[in-house]
């Protein structure tokens, strides 16, 4: 199955609204996404502890405790619906039966909640992409690849309702290019290598999902654009570079949908609004209520178009109120009540405006995630036909958006950010139209970092 997106599913940015998606998704125990409500997506991880066979009983006990606290909080908060995400830790993917065992535990808790008090709910399971254990990574063969595919199979069989991944194909090149501010390398990684790996991996994921009647969720450019976001937040990279990387990264994430992914997108995929405009599928987002996991400059604008609202990840530790996952589920639940009340009362436009306006003038990374900016970037993408051209178009459009915002004084860019924006613009303009030409020069520059066979080259 291969779908091409040559037009926007949401052509008018004013149609990009939280809680509503033209192509809703039904999953799990009666959870319907994109049909007029925003639901919490709770994510969690283990506290500091050894994760191996000798300590497995303690690991299981943590997930049992989390499951129990989810049931308790969902009932107490009268949640209208809930997505739970289980992100496997690397050993749980290396040993597929471990991830499947935890999946079964969480599935059992959600099934119980649905039976006891009718909670519409679903379990998203996200195996870790463990294929990059060697350098250069072998992305298409070997034990890690086999374990990853087995992990999808076994988690699907154990009760996952949605399967997702944060895949890392081309990260080995992107990391290096990003550190050096090398736009040729960034675009090569995002527009030439990553789409090839996404196509390889997502066709396999969709096949697993079809055989188990599980929803193929989506991928995230976390390893690419969130790396840029974090480095910029530490003052190591210009914010405008992180913003351009975000826009460009949407194309490699889009490939999952071309292969049959249906959404919801992953919470850490801040490129989600661009994907929603193109595909019309529901998106998960994270912002202010994910500061337990990491900081970001896009805390409110990230919420403007979400269908699931996530905390990204929190350790299962004891807070004054109770277990941290339960505390964060309460935060998300109250956030979602506001979204849903706005939708119910017809004030969603005003609420969305507040979410957008409170952030967009303070950061280029927030500015490019407004409904208008994401609509423009999405339009630029669907006008092109190759992944390379689409990536380049997204990057160029984001530069135009940021330049115009600076000129209109809608965004306060300091002189160094402006210098970098112009440098990025020049570098993008200098890239060849012909992908093959770029491939030759990039093999010279980065050939030592990646295996051509991993990308079918």
């Amino acid at each position, binding site marked *: 199955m291969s779908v091409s997106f040559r037009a926007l599913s949401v052509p008018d940015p004013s149609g990009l609204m939280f809680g509503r998606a033209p192509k809703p998704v039904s999953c799990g125990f009666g959870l319907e996404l994109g049909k007029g409500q925003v639901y919490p997506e709770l994510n969690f991880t283990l506290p500091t*502890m050894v*994760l191996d066979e000798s300590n497995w009983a303690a690991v299981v006990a943590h997930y049992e405790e989390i499951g129990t606290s989810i049931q308790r909080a969902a009932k107490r908060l009268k949640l209208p619906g809930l997505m739970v995400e289980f992100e496997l830790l690397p050993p749980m993917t290396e040993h597929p039966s471990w991830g499947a065992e935890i999946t079964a535990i969480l599935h059992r808790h959600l099934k119980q909640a649905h039976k006891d008090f009718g909670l519409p709910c679903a379990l998203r399971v996200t195996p870790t992409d463990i294929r990059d254990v060697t350098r250069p990574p072998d992305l298409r063969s070997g034990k890690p690849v086999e374990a990853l595919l087995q992990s999808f199979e076994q988690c699907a069989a154990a009760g996952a309702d949605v399967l997702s991944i944060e895949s890392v194909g081309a990260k080995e090149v992107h*990391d290096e290019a990003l550190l050096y501010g*090398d736009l040729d390398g960034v675009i090569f990684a995002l527009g030439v290598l990553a789409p090839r790996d996404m196509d390889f991996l997502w066709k396999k994921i969709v096949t697993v999902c079809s055989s188990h009647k599980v929803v193929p969720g989506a991928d995230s450019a976390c390893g690419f654009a969130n*790396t840029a976001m974090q480095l910029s937040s*530490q003052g190591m990279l210009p914010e405008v570079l992180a913003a351009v990387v975000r826009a460009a990264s949407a194309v490699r994430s889009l490939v999952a949908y071309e292969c049959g992914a249906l959404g919801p997108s992953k919470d850490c995929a801040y490129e989600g609004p661009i994907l929603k405009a193109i595909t019309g599928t529901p998106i998960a987002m994270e912002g202010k209520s994910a500061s337990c996991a990491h900081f970001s400059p896009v805390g409110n604008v990230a919420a403007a178009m979400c269908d699931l609202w996530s905390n990204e990840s929190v350790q299962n530790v004891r807070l004054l109120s109770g277990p941290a996952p339960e505390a964060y589920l309460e935060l998300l639940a109250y956030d979602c009540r506001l979204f849903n009340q706005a939708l119910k009362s017809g004030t969603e436009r005003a609420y969305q405006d507040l979410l957008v306006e409170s952030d967009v003038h303070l950061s280029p990374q927030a500015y490019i995630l407004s409904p208008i900016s994401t609509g423009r970037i999405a339009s630029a993408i669907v006008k092109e036909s190759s992944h390379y051209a689409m990536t380049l178009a997204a990057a160029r459009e984001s530069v135009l958006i940021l330049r115009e915002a600076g000129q209109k004084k809608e965004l306060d860019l300091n002189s160094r950010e402006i210098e970098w924006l112009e440098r990025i613009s020049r570098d993008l303009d200098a890239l060849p139209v012909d992908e093959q030409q770029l491939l030759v020069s990039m093999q010279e520059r980065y050939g030592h970092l990646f295996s051509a066979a991993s990308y079918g080259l």
Partner: protein
Amino acid sequence: MKELQELAQSVEQGQVQKVSGLTQQLLDSGVSPQTVLNDGLIAGMTVVGEKMRSGEMYLPEVLQSASAMHGSLKILKPHLVREGAQSRGKIMVGTVKGDMHDIGKNLVSIMLQGAGFDIVDLGLNVPPQKFVEAITAHQPAILGLSAMLTTTMLNMKTTIEAINAAGLRSNVKVIIGGAPVSQKFADEIGADGYARDAVLAVDKVKQLLGVTA
């Protein structure tokens, strides 16, 4: 000396060809390779480090400076070896067992190289025994351990225990870094230091080795 100042400035500005050219000129005019290294290259990179710390330079600009320095070092190294010049110190780095995050570790390596240290990078997902074997083989002054996960950070402790058990602990200082770790954790597992980011890692290494510039 004016030429050395110009070299330091060129390093700061990341002018790869100019730095190499000036290095050769200085050597040809009889300036000692150690002086070129200390008063030209490292002096320039010290300013770069300060500018990065104060937010005046971004990482790509820092790396451009580091590239300029490396170009010069290629010319300088044979002369330094001939003169028996001492390295500033050998630093070994690696991401601990079970962890596949390496961008932070790579960043630290680059910054340390820029500050004139020799790097041995063991890569990612490194088991304790491999660290032990590499310490025996390379005899680094400092070992930098990296971890990004709450479930892998304890492998830093396991690694230090393995180094202890091998009787090598007094030969090497250990520093740690990564999102879930802290100074408190470093103290708990018996590490000699913790650094929150790559710039501070360079400071910590200099402090532990008693390097002042």
